[in-house]
């Protein structure tokens, strides 16, 4: 049986609804329609009254979830696209994010953000917003890159007492398939060595893990380079132990991400490695992100806007030639 990434998200929600009466789903078009990406298909029928269509009101969607969490529920909110969570920004960072620190009462809720670029999606259906939510205190931000992680990390996210921003990558929805959802038992906050290596480390997350592995394979064929790929899995908090241990082995770091280049995950990774593991570095750490413009619509511009295996290899060659 082959399971696609988006199916794993659906299965996880099915599992959660079945096992945990505190769980319910709230979002636009998620009930009988099954959601814009079919991540909730069939769930409204299987769990009557627990999969609710919301009005087009992202701010109130999160406010509702915070209220429900206060009453002991475990809401999962689906944003139709991550980009529309900009409307819910205030409720996410100021209502949900501050609650535990202010009151001592945690608000367990999960926000699913269909994230990242796909060809033709343009500036408002392609964004990666993990940096925005990670900057504010109080939130956990996860970015699963594999089918099994999509499944297990969603279940773990809902089990956490704190608000979790679950960034699922739309490009992986149907493209990424696996023979099953069996996981490797990693806890939520741990990074994973996706591909071991010794000459350099690529630290990345979400869909870019796959581009990094492709680039690493090419570098291997091309010059026998053994590139280690670290999948952060969780970007807030960061598993610096795994990252530093990898850099200690390889001496070289490329931080890779699909988000905009100012600040964000790659800045945090490079700056923490430079501060905490300066002596481990044999070469200047490198960063590689998408460009500092909105995500363009045209597939040709889009492909040039984000890192690809070709351009990642260019960066790697520079890194290795230092």
């Amino acid at each position, binding site marked *: 049986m082959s399971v696609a990434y988006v199916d794993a998200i659906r299965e996880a929600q099915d599992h959660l609804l079945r096992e945990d009466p505190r769980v319910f789903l709230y979002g636009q078009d998620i009930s009988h329609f099954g959601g814009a990406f079919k991540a909730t298909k069939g769930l409204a029928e299987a769990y009557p009254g627990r999969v609710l269509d919301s*009005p087009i009101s992202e701010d109130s969607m999160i*406010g*509702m*979830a915070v209220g*429900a969490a206060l009453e002991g529920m475990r809401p999962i909110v689906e944003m139709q696209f991550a980009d529309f969570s900009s409307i819910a920004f205030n409720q996410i960072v100021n209502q949900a994010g501050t609650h535990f620190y202010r*009151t001592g*009462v945690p608000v367990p809720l999960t926000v699913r953000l269909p994230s990242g670029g796909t060809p033709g999606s343009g500036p408002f259906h392609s964004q990666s917003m993990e940096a925005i939510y990670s900057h504010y205190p109080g939130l956990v931000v996860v970015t699963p890159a594999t089918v099994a992680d999509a499944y297990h990390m969603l*279940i773990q996210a809902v089990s956490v007492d704190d608000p979790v921003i679950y960034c699922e990558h739309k490009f992986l929805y149907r493209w990424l398939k696996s023979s099953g959802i069996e996981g490797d038992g990693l806890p939520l906050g741990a990074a994973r060595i996706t591909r071991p290596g010794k000459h350099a480390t690529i630290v990345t997350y979400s869909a870019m893990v796959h581009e990094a592995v492709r680039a690493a394979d090419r570098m291997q064929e091309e010059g026998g380079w053994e590139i280690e790929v670290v999948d952060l899995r969780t970007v807030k908090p960061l*598993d610096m132990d795994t990252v530093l241990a990898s850099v200690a082995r390889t001496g070289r770091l490329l931080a890779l991400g699909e988000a905009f280049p100012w600040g964000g995950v790659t800045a945090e990774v490079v700056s923490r490695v430079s501060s905490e593991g300066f002596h481990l570095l044999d070469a200047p750490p490198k960063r590689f992100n998408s460009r500092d413009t909105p995500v363009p619509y045209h597939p040709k511009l889009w492909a040039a806007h984000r890192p690809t295996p070709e351009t990642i290899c260019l960066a790697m060659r520079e890194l290795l030639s230092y």
Partner: protein
Amino acid sequence: MLEARQLETKLASLYKAGKIVGGVYLGKGQEAVSASLGGCLEWGRDIFAPLIRDQGGRSAFGEPIIDCTRTYLGSAEGPMRGRDGNIHRGRPTSGLPAMISHLGASVSVVSGMLLARRIKGELDGVVGATSIGDGGTSTGAFHEGLNAAAVEKLPLVVAVANNQFAYSTPNERQFACDDLLDRARGYGVEGHDVDGTDFLACLRTMAEAVDRARQGRGPQMVVARLLRLSGHGEHDDASYVPETVRSGPYGRDCMDIAAAQMVESGYADETEIESWREAVTDEVQRALATAQREPDPNPWDERWEARSTNLLTVTDP
């Protein structure tokens, strides 16, 4: 109500004496509206999400007065332990959410609490209420929250205290409808109008609105016309309120009217009211004294943690 007025009068003088930092926000003139709403709700069953000018409603709902003094004075023993202050306090697991500053944001939070009760099968007979000002109705959060509550037909009461000004901004720069009550129909909710200076009228109207919500008639919107008899905060002298408005019908003090109404209706006489006043003054004095004796939060002991979970321990349950 009496408690609220006494308490806030004290807080105002403490602020002026430099004993409270950050600001003091009073509900002076709005006690009748707020307390009559809070009084219609039952602690332990209902939900009340107060806003800026709701000391009256908090006290009537059952928030211990010590929560107020501790939070204003930043006591480490208070519900917010010095991490948040003044009106930003609550007991969120007892149906009293702690407001954030962003106006309108509580409407959906209360709705979510009610929705949760419904899903749990515990909504029967429960009401959730929250307050907002004339200015707060201009926020997208108010609109989205009330609309969503109406769609779910939740037992929500939104009390709009139309005190004619939002900080300095008069109603004609805030909205263009004749009466905020006209909004109720557009949300498909029931609307109620009341003179917010008239205590008995407030009691009747709030009771009616809360009852209707309890009976399952969906969200209720109460619009109370009144004036705040103080500045936005104690740093503000409200000089933007024209003398004609102050001396007009909204400028009446609901406390005086309430006292007169009680006497007139035979509910209490002057001496009883005076004795209440004294009792309340005592209680306020004690709550302030207690909070003042308590330790400040200690930054060295502070747990600088905005999350409750150590993620590395989270595996599949």
